[in-house]
C-alpha cells in the first residue's frame, strides 16, 4: 500500500473523529467535571479536595435556594399551564380555515425569534407602573387603575409569567396546529356523521388523539421554565428583593459573584437533577411508545 492509499484510508477517520469526540467529551467530561467540583471546597479557584455532600446541604439550607425553588414552582406551573392554554386556543382558532392564516401564524410566533433579553427589557418597560400600561390607562382617565405587580413582592413573579407566555405561546401553537392537522380525517368524519358538535368533536375526538403532542409540549415548556435565566435578569433582575429569583440566578450568583465555585456547582447539579426529573421519564415514555409502534407495525 502506498502512502497515498494509506492517507486516503486514514483521512476520513481524521475528519470524522475529532468533532464526534469533542461533542461527546463536552457532554460527559464537562458534566462530570462540574459534579466533581460540587464535592470540593472550591471557592474562587477550583480546589480538588473531597468535601462530601456538604455543599449540597449548605445550598439546600440557604434562603436564596429555597425561595428560588418556590419561585420556580409558581412560575413553572403558571407558565406551562397558561402557555399551553394560549397555544391551544390560538391553534384551534387558526385551524378554522381563517383568512390570512400565514400572517396570523407569523405574528404569534415572532416572539420566539427575539432574545429573552429583549423580551425581558421591553416587558420591563410595559409593566413599569410609571411609564407602562398603568400610566397609559390612567392617562385615558381611569385614574385609580392599578397595574404595578412588577414592584410588588407577592405578584412580581406573575409578571415574569406574562412575558414568558407572550414569548412561548406561539411555539405551543405551532406544535398544536401540526397536531390538529394530523388527526385522521376518517375519525372526524365518523364523529361528524354521529352528529357531534364542534366543541364535542374537539374534546372527544381531536384532543385525545393528540395526547403525545400534549406531552411533548408539556415537557419542552417545563424544560424552558427550569432553564429560565436571561428573561428574569432582564425583566426584574430577580427582584424586588428575592421575589423573582430563580435557581439559575442563584447558581450564577454563587459561582461568579460570591466566588463559591463548589456551592455554585452543587446548585448547578441540583438544577440538572430537576431537569432529569422531567426528561428521563419522557425519554422512557418515548422509548416505550416507539417499541409499541414497531410491534404494531
Amino acid at each position, binding site marked *: 500500500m502506498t502512502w497515498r492509499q494509506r492517507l486516503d484510508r486514514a483521512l476520513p477517520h481524521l475528519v470524522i473523529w475529532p468533532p464526534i469526540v469533542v461533542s461527546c467529551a463536552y457532554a460527559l467530561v464537562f458534566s462530570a467535571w462540574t459534579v466533581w467540583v460540587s464535592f470540593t471546597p472550591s471557592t474562587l479557584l477550583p480546589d480538588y479536595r473531597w468535601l462530601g455532600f456538604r455543599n449540597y446541604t449548605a445550598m439546600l439550607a440557604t434562603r436564596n435556594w429555597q425561595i428560588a425553588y418556590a419561585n420556580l414552582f409558581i412560575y413553572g406551573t403558571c407558565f406551562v399551564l397558561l402557555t399551553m392554554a394560549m397555544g391551544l386556543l390560538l391553534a384551534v382558532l387558526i385551524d*378554522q380555515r381563517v383568512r390570512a392564516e400565514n400572517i396570523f401564524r*407569523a405574528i404569534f410566533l415572532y416572539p420566539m425569534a427575539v432574545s429573552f433579553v429583549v423580551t425581558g427589557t421591553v416587558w420591563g418597560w410595559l409593566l413599569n407602573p410609571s411609564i407602562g400600561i398603568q400610566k397609559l390607562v390612567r392617562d385615558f382617565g381611569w385614574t385609580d387603575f392599578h397595574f404595578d405587580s412588577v414592584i410588588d413582592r407577592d405578584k412580581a413573579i406573575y409578571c415574569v409569567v406574562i412575558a414568558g407566555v407572550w414569548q412561548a405561546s406561539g411555539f405551543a401553537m405551532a406544535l398544536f396546529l401540526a397536531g390538529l392537522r394530523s388527526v385522521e380525517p376518517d375519525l*372526524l368524519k365518523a364523529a*361528524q356523521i354521529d352528529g357531534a358538535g364542534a366543541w364535542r368533536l374537539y374534546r372527544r375526538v381531536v384532543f385525545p388523539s393528540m395526547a403525545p403532542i400534549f406531552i411533548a409540549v408539556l415537557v419542552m415548556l417545563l424544560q424552558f421554565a427550569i432553564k429560565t435565566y436571561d428573561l428574569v435578569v432582564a425583566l426584574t433582575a430577580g427582584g424586588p428583593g428575592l421575589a423573582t429569583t430563580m435557581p439559575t440566578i442563584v447558581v450564577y450568583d454563587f459561582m461568579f459573584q460570591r466566588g463559591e465555585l463548589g456551592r455554585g456547582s452543587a446548585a448547578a447539579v441540583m438544577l440538572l437533577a430537576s431537569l432529569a426529573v422531567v426528561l428521563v421519564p419522557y425519554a422512557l415514555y418515548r422509548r416505550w411508545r416507539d417499541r409499541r409502534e414497531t410491534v404494531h407495525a
Partner: protein
Amino acid sequence: MPRRLARPAIHAVLLLLAVAYLVPLAAVALNSVRSTEDILQTSMIGLPRALVWTNFSQTWSSYCLAEHCSGIRPYFLNSLEMTIPATIISTLLGALNGYSLALWRFRGDVWVFGIITLGVFLPEQMKLVPWVIVLRELGLFNTIAGLVLIHIVQGLSFTTLFCRNYYTAIPTDLLKAARIDGAGFFRIFWRIVLPLSPPILIVTVIWQFTGIWNEYLYGVTFAAGEQQPITAALIALSAHVSEAPHYGEQSAAVLLAAAPTLLVYLFGGRYFLRGLTTGAVK
C-alpha cells in the same frame, strides 16, 4: 375539520390577539423615534409627537455604557464577529458528524448519538466552571475567539442532531451503489449527501444564528467590558440608566439588537419553524 364556530367572531378574536402580541414590538419601534421627554410625559405606548431619528445615531455611536461612550456599535459588531463564524463552522462540522453517524454506521453509533443529543438538554450552568478553566488555559478568556469556540462546541450537539436525523432518510442503496463505483467518504459526501442537504443546512444555519445571537449567559460570563456581545450590553444599558432614563435611545438599541434575528425570521420563517419543531420534539 370540525364544523365552524361563528366565523366573524373567530376573526375578531384572532385580530385582537394579534394586535396584543404585536404591542411590544410596535411600542419599541415607535419609541425608537420618540424623544425621552415625550415618552415620560405620556407612556411607553404612544405615537411619536415628532420623529426623532437622532436616537439611532446616538445609540449606535455615542451613547455611554458604563465608562465607554462608543454606543452599541462595538457590541453589535462583537455579536456579528461571534455569530457568523460560529454558525458556519458548527453547521459544517454538524453536517459531517451527522453524515458519519447516519450513513457510515460504526459499532456504538447509537450510543454516541445519544450522548451528543444529551448536550442539547444539559443546562448551560453545568458547563460554566469547566469553560472558565478551559478558556483560561487556552488564553481565550475575555476574547471573541473564546465565545466562538464555545458556540461551536455547544452548537455541535444541535447541528449533529438536525443533520443526522435528516440524513437517515437517505436510502442506503444510493451509497452502496456509489461505493461499488469506487467513491470514498469525501466524494460521497460531496457528490451525493451535500446536494441533498440545502433544506437541512438552511434550517441549521437559521437555528444556530438565532440561538447564538440571542445567547446571554456565556456572553456575560466569559467576556467583559468592550468584548461583550450585544445581549450583555443591553442588560448593562438598562441596569445603568435607571438613574437617568433615556428611553428613546434605549428603544433604538433594543430594536437594533432584535433586528438581525427578526429579519432572519421574516425571510426564513418556514425554516425557523422547522428547526423549532425538530429541535424541540426529537
